[in-house]
């Protein structure tokens, strides 16, 4: 049975290492693979730290800013539609980071799918879970699920209805199955009621679900609401689980 103990002069406690009952098989395997790879010189702890830093820097705020800028600056929108990867640099996102040639999984072929009042896009990767990480961060769990990947391509209206999005039959729904090296994001139609809004105000209503295409932006809607399954040892909560710093 683990007991906590106090350091002399400090009075702080440090969390005891997880016991065998607490550490999971995957945590063990992850540590084993990472340590072996470093021991064999396949990569360095510093490589791991640098890439972790990049992974922790990404999130959907970048995508929201991209959409808000496209909504307010027609010339930027034209550049964005002509060359998505290049236009991202204008909002500070470089698809070449952090390696200089892009992340191994996200590549450098970013394309924006422009919605119109009669055309709505929604994105899935039926084969795995390809996702525009530099713009949107990590994919949500449901996007990775076999369930979403099976159903969205064939029953898009039904799946969107489950997300609360029901579109009239006059609107064409176009599913983008992101199965190769292009990475996609939806550029939604700017909703009414946002006239004269600043870019920050606009970005606040462009949530991740809007950029996947399972929600539409509207004034007052500033969050995607889904149940959240808590982690056993979430990122940053377990010093003993953390990779070398």
């Amino acid at each position, binding site marked *: 049975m683990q007991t906590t103990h106090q350091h002399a002069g400090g009075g702080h406690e440090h969390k005891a290492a997880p016991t065998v009952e607490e550490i999971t098989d995957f945590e063990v395997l992850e540590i084993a693979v990472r340590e072996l790879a470093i021991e064999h010189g396949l990569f360095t702890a510093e490589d791991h730290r640098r890439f972790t830093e990049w992974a922790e820097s990404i999130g959907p705020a970048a995508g929201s800013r991209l959409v808000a800028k496209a909504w307010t600056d027609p010339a930027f929108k034209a550049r964005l539609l002509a060359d998505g990867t290049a236009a991202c640099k204008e909002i500070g996102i*470089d698809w*070449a*980071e952090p*390696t*200089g*040639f*892009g992340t191994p999984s996200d590549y450098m*072929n970013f*394309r924006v799918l422009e919605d119109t009042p009669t055309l709505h896009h929604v994105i899935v990767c*039926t*084969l795995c879970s390809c996702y525009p990480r530099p713009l949107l961060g990590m994919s949500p769990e449901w996007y990775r699920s076999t369930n979403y990947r099976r159903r969205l*391509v*064939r029953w*898009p*209206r039904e799946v969107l209805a489950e997300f609360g999005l029901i579109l009239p*039959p*006059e*609107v*064409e*729904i*176009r*599913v*983008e*199955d*992101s*199965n*190769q*090296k*292009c990475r996609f994001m939806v550029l939604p139609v700017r909703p009414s009621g946002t006239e004269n809004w600043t870019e920050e105000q606009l970005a606040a209503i462009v949530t991740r679900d809007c950029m996947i295409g399972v929600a539409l932006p509207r004034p007052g809607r500033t969050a995607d609401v889904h149940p959240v399954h808590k982690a056993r040892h979430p990122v940053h909560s377990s010093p003993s689980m953390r990779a070398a710093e």
Partner: protein
Amino acid sequence: MKRTKAPHARKSAGNAPARFKVGDRVRVKDLPNMFYSRTQMYARGVSGTIAACTYQDLIPEDEAFNQEGRLEQYYIVRFRQKDLWEEYPSEKDTLQTEFPDRWLEPA
């Protein structure tokens, strides 16, 4: 950021010719399927329209096994949902997805 060379920079004995352009009607081939493919079951044998030419790269069946090969043109192909799914109720809806050149033939 300075662009450095990707590991295993691809050797190619020239690029395969790009046979299609935007607007062409194409059909997805149903080549034999074993071990790995990124050409979906639901698209094989179906005809669609080239919506975009994207980039040139190795085909996934080669890259997944670290085989060197020629770079091929990739295309986004757009289908009517009604052509993919017999029971699909709407005439309007579409689906688009991406294929390398070798997976397509003129429709």
